[in-house]
């Protein structure tokens, strides 16, 4: 039998772990446990709940206010894994600098990023957004329409990214994209980037943004981008959405491999 004294000796270790990783524990609670509990209690999925909140609080047709409402909900109710206001600023700034004509977003989720980018798009530009989950897509569709963007500006494609990307040219008439924003599964970043390269969809000097490259992190994607020589890579350091203490970053890749 292990004596209580030996068990007590582990106490400092536990306290150390608790203190050192407290932010991650809070995140675990807010993002996973609370969401699961609410799902059980209300029977409505989290995205739906967020949308209901937005519907009741936001001003229709005002993208900024809709985004703000999303932030409010995430700060006060539950954690929503979208771009978030802090990294949103970086995305917005880069988008305004590049002024692309065709934008591709992988991973729509609730449409937060879509609304953010659509609002910053130059006139006559078009945004394609890909979402594999039909439930999320339906929510996103409603959010986008609520923000006042029609099919001319934003086209929502429901399907897995590895299936959608090869068909972009035939089915959707996309010749090349100038700006790609990745915010879906972190492990699909590398695969999708290579798919885009293979199908020649990246225009010269196209910008590829990848969210969450530090936390949860996409090491292989970053490694590939840094070493393959086709990109100029830069990581913008920021913090995780709605959790200031957890560091995160957006990778900005400038495609130079077309020539």
């Amino acid at each position, binding site marked *: 039998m292990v*004596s209580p*004294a030996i068990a007590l*000796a*582990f106490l*400092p270790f536990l306290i*150390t772990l608790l*203190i050192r990783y407290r932010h991650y524990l809070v995140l675990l609670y807010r993002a996973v446990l609370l969401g699961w509990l609410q799902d059980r209690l209300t029977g409505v999925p989290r995205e739906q709940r967020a949308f209901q909140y937005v519907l009741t609080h936001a001003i229709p047709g005002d993208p900024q206010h809709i985004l703000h409402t999303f932030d409010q909900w995430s700060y006060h109710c539950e954690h929503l894994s979208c771009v978030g206001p802090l990294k949103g600023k970086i995305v917005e700034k880069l988008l305004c600098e590049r002024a692309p004509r065709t934008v591709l977003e992988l991973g729509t989720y609730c449409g937060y990023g879509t609304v953010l980018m659509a609002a910053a798009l130059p006139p006559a530009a078009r945004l394609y957004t890909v979402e594999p989950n039909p439930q999320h897509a339906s929510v996103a569709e409603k959010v986008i329409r609520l923000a006042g963007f029609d099919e001319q500006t934003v086209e929502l494609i429901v399907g897995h990214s590895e299936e959608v990307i090869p068909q972009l040219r035939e089915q959707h008439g996309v010749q090349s994209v100038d700006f790609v924003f990745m915010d879906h599964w972190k492990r699909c970043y590398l695969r999708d980037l290579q798919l885009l390269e293979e199908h020649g969809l990246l225009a010269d000097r196209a910008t590829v943004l990848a969210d969450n490259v*530090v936390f949860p*992190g996409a*090491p292989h994607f970053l490694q590939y981008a840094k070493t393959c020589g086709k990109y100029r890579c830069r990581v913008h350091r920021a913090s995780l959405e709605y959790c200031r203490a957890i560091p995160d970053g957006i990778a900005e890749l400038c495609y130079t491999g077309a020539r």
Partner: protein
Amino acid sequence: NFFYFSQCGNFVNTLFLLTNPYFTCTCFRFLITDVSEVNNEEDSAAENQENDRGADKERKRAKPRTRRGHGRGRARHGGEEDGDDEDGTRRAGQRRQRNRRGRGRAGNEGSDSEGDPTKARKNQANQKSKEDDEQEEDEKGGKSGKGKNEKKQDKKVDKKGKKEKANKKKKDKKKSGSGSGSDSEEEPITEEELAKLKEEVEEKKKLIATLRNKPWKMKKKLSVLKEAQLFVEKFEGALGKGKGKKFYAYKVMMTKKWMKFQRDFENFKTACIPWEMKIKEIESHFGSSVASYFIFLRWMYGINMILFGLTFGLVMIPEALMGKPYGSLPRKTVPRAEEATAMNFATLWDFSGFAQYSVLFYGYYNNQRTIGWLKFRMPLSYFLVGVGTIGYSFMIVIRTMARNANEDGGGDDTSFNFSWKMFTSWDYLIGNPETADNKFASITTSFKEAIVEEQESRKEENIHLTRFLRVLANFLALCTLAGSGYLIFFVVRRSQKFALEGLENYGWWERNEVNMVMSLLGMFCPTLFDVISSLENYHPRIALRWQLGRIFALFLGNLYTFIIALMDEINLKLEEEKIVKYNMTIWEASLYNGTIPENSTAPPIQVDPADVPRGPCWETMVGQEFVRLTVSDTMTTYITILIGDFLRAVFVRFFNYCWCWDLEYGFPSYSEFDISGNVLGLIFNQGMIWMGSFYAPCLPAINVFRLHTSMYLQCWAVMCCNVPQERVFKASRSNNFYMAMLLFILFLSTLPAVYTIVSIPPSFDCGPFSGKTRMFEVISETLEHDFPSWFGKVFGYASNPGLILPFILLMVLSIYYLNATSKSYKEANLELKKKLQSMRQKNKNC
């Protein structure tokens, strides 16, 4: 000269920076330049000649190209015709020929580079003072005179004479080497040509010497330098001519060889420093703070080697060679009850059985006054080695501290920090690309360190919040310390209860509870302190000190708990000893009664020494405890490294391919090197050695082995599984902090050792002091027997308190005086520094 070049490697020398790469890129060339510097005296003489002929310089410069062609042709003839003119053999002739040929080429070079550097050089040289010239001329005269006897008469000449001499020399040269067959009208031209050539060579040498002062671009400097060096390399052989040529060549060669030897010797000396390359490599990747740990470890290794030498050479070896062999005495024999298991691995691993009854422990030694044919005084040697070990340690620690303190005082390391780093970081002696990479990395790290420091010094923050947080952090740390102290206390109490009831009734967990709890606390509390110290927001170097202090308190608690437990056990053993002694008399009596009754003069009865009952021998028990503790401590450290560092690194590295978050950046990540924990582990381990080595002479040997392996293991672990700290910082002066802690621990570990030596009577039947009431009586015994009686008397007077007290008083006073003077010197230094600074400021403003 050699000193000059050895400094090239010293990258602190900014001035040499510009010329350095060339001296170091090829050893050969560098030696040549060196010789050219030797010959520098000749330079100014040539410059003088130039002054005379300054007017018709252009004309001369035009000439050589055509005439040199002739010269070359002549040389070829001369080589065949007059090869045996003097003692010049064919080889000499060949060399001359080569020189000639080269000269032809270099003439072109000379005229090419005539425009830029040489002119400036000449102008500069013209301003040289007269006396300087004359002096050097004399030297020059001496030089050539050495070779030619006929020149001795015009040793002291003015400039004109000098010129003549030059002419004469040329003539001689010609006669011997080449020109005897040629017409007389060509002779002056050759002469002139040779003089010209010499001039040029000297110019070049001068240029090489002063190149670094030129306000040119680096590229230009490089090309000019290369050119000049090539030129000099080719022609400087032509300078010493005639009869002394061979001797001169020999001298030059020997100088070169000597230089090379000195350089090699220097390299050899560096190569002899153990683990220098390893530590440098670590320093380049992890910064000086981590390297300081390894340097400390190496230093400790050196100390332990000496301790090991003392105990091994003066105690263990004599006893093993000259003492009575195993089995001759009860104390040198395994008792009957233990004989069955004495050779089992588990027993040996526990340092009992055969290991206990060997030279490794106190109990094995006999109390014979002298052993062997050498009349080696074993007990005295044992005592003196024990005392000497501690005395030596004190001395070396204090000396090192004093030296470090001296190093701290000098140097103005606060101003121009970045310029120093910027311009003087590179080490031009680096030869292989790997080292260059390392150096590059280390310079980058040192820049990072400097930037961190600069940031720290400029930071302004909310002072009240910081203070509050610091107080809070200290409070938390104190709570942790108190908690862990109580836990240890509780465990020790419990274990005493177990011991009273008999340990056989309890399981492994209960028996090892104290050790387990202690090592767990020692492992986990530092991490907690680490987390707490992040509250305080100190500079990493200061944070390291706090961390060290806290862990020090924790370890000290552990150590003293251990010692107190040991003291209890000693007291128990002493009581047991009394009973055994009583029983012994009964046993002996029964022995005599049983076998030979009523015979007092009977010979001693032969009993197998294994059967003789014996006392508990508390000294050996203490030694065993310390050895066990050291071994288990070592094992814990190694296992922690293997699990905490290596397995974690393997996990992080290979599971990163299939994990849902980034393991390398995120949660487990790779571990950082824990400087404070490692340093304190080392220090406390050393304290254990100091305490235990009196009772277990094998302890220094075990420690040397441990340090040796841990050097390799930790070097490997650091390079293979650790990542540098987020904030790499410089470890300036923390070395002395380590030393101060070491001194404190040394003091603390001396206390129990001295206490046991002075106040507890040694066991009656084991160890070199058995039969005495106190261990130090061996000294008075030696005084009595081995020294003349007057010496004992003098000693007796000297140890009189009436003499000792004034002596101590005198010592205290002198310490006070020295302290006061050193303080005043320090103040004066500071004042001077301030003055210098203000003067500099004034100069800047003017």
